[in-house]
């Protein structure tokens, strides 16, 4: 390694703030470029999957007469 210590690598003789801030911005931009479209595609497919899912079965309808004629009513 070019630097003697981690401290020297971080400070870079006073230029560390400039260099490391560029590193942070680069990591954020790179992550954004790769993660955002992949997540968008995954969410879109997941959304389609929900749309495609069969509707829940309706509860069996019971006619009022059947309830009234039930034994004990």
């Amino acid at each position: 390694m070019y630097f003697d210590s981690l401290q020297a690598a971080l400070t870079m003789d006073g230029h560390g703030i400039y260099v490391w801030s560029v590193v942070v911005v680069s990591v954020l931009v790179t992550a954004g470029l790769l993660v955002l479209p992949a997540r968008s595609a995954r969410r879109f497919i997941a959304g389609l999957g929900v749309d495609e899912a069969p509707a829940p079965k309706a509860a069996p309808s019971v006619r009022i007469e059947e309830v009234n004629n039930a034994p004990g009513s």
Partner: protein
Amino acid sequence: MWTWFHKLGSPPWMYRISGRILAILLPLTIAMLVVGAVWGLLYAPMDFKQGNSFRIIYFHVPASVVALAGYYVMAIAGAVSLIWRMKMAEVAMKCAAPVGAALTFLSLLSGAIWGKPTWGTYWVWDARITSMLILFFLYLGVIALYQAYENKEAAGKACAVLSLVGMVNIPIIYKSVDWWYSLHQPATIKFTEESTMHSSMFQPLLLMILAFYCLFTCALLLNMRSELLRRGASTSWVRALAGAR
């Protein structure tokens, strides 16, 4: 012989093949970025004039080079979509714009941060920097123009024309440091001459440039896959894909 070219026009084929490419290229890109960044930041020697601030070059130059190359990709895709009415080219043009804009933004921001310790200021209205800012606005213009149209076919045509017209800015960016007096240093990498950098500094830079080219390709393919899914939402191959998950 031309079957591969015709296959490029097929969304399911493109979706499938891009998935296979990404499975190999994405881990390779991340590995190259990590190795190149660590090599340049921690192992390359310091520049005797600029000190350690020169290490910003390992992000600034690759982002700038690929932002310019990305514009060529966008404009060529726009030309193909105009001439041969190839929908896949229109998808590529539309998807290249945000990737190029992000890299131009990184180039401008890293250049501004580098300018402070080197020139004593974050920004000067210098020919190179101003022409790069115009490139950023061209990318944003393509994105905004596509969003502005209800009719996406007309949007594609308008964006293709704008990208082709904007090509005039690319040679201006390249030659700006030669044509005008500029604070910006001349090109580090030249095709006709040997590089002005020592090999111990130059090798990590070459690796980072290659990594950024791969990053552009990965981001473009990921954006295209997302766009293909949206455009084909009602088609059987997308429905089958959703059903399989």
